[in-house]
């Protein structure tokens, strides 16, 4: 009985010991960045040149994270990243492909207001 039991005893004995000699499965995250698929749904990138101010993105957003604000007389989407659920329905609804995804995901901040991405700031800075 003991013999058969021995062979059926937990394979954990061997497995745990083998891990001492193998490399841990841990990624070296903050020091080495992970490789993300190209179409990862990170922070949305808005291209104001393509925008036709139709407001479809704002209308279809399930989280109401897109607000249309006046920029130089035209209505442009303003993204509230703190509400955004990163579903990219806006990108799908956009007739001109003005909203694209990016692989940037480290959005943590201690200042909530920095999570509102205004379309005008980018214009001003770029100008």
């Amino acid at each position, binding site marked *: 009985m003991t013999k058969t039991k021995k062979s059926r005893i937990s394979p954990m004995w061997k497995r745990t010991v083998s891990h001492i000699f193998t490399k841990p499965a841990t990624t070296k995250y903050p020091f080495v960045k992970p490789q993300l698929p190209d179409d990862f749904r990170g922070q949305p990138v808005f291209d104001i040149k393509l925008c036709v101010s139709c407001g479809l993105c704002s209308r279809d957003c399930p989280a109401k994270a897109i607000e249309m604000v006046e920029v130089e007389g035209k209505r442009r989407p303003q993204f509230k990243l703190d509400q955004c659920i990163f579903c990219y329905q806006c990108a799908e609804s956009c007739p001109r492909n003005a909203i694209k995804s990016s692989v940037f995901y480290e959005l943590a901040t201690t200042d909530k207001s*920095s999570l509102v991405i205004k379309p005008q700031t980018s214009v001003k800075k770029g100008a």
Partner: protein
Amino acid sequence: MANTITWARVKSPWVLHFNSGACNGCDIEIVALLTPKYDVERFGVKLEPSPRHADVLLVTGCVTQQCAERLKRVYDQMPQPKFVVAIGACACSGGVFAGNYNVVGGVDKVIPVTAYIPGCPPRPEAILDGVVKLLNALSPPKPKKQPKQVKTPELPKEEAKPEVAKPEAVTQQEVKPIVEEAKPNAKQ
């Protein structure tokens, strides 16, 4: 002496996870942080069961009416100094559930929040990044304030490339860069 204490606090953040009505998405990502792939024990982070032991409160979820009061109580039970991190769109502002009849929406409506981590859900890396940012905010004498951003022309665009850098250096490049990345596109 003060340096030693700050050092100890930064190196040993024990966290308590509070689910205030989340969908489990963020919660499993928090638990995933403990597991071999991310292993936050590297940074001394321990998930503690009791609010009495914790330094950092990780709140997920959109704060339902029933949970608001509990959240307040759990926060009060924690010993000073204590910090709150809101994880996920729901905890930051209510997310997709904002405006529902049973939802308060946003952790900062109930307790003060130190750091926000948007995402639905944020990647475990993003959560780790948020905790590291919080801890870096601890290091200078003025707590809770992020040091002024130095504008970096470099963009963290090519994340695929393994770049070796100190965590501080990584976190210096805040949210801003990507906005700047959006600009050139806009200008073309």
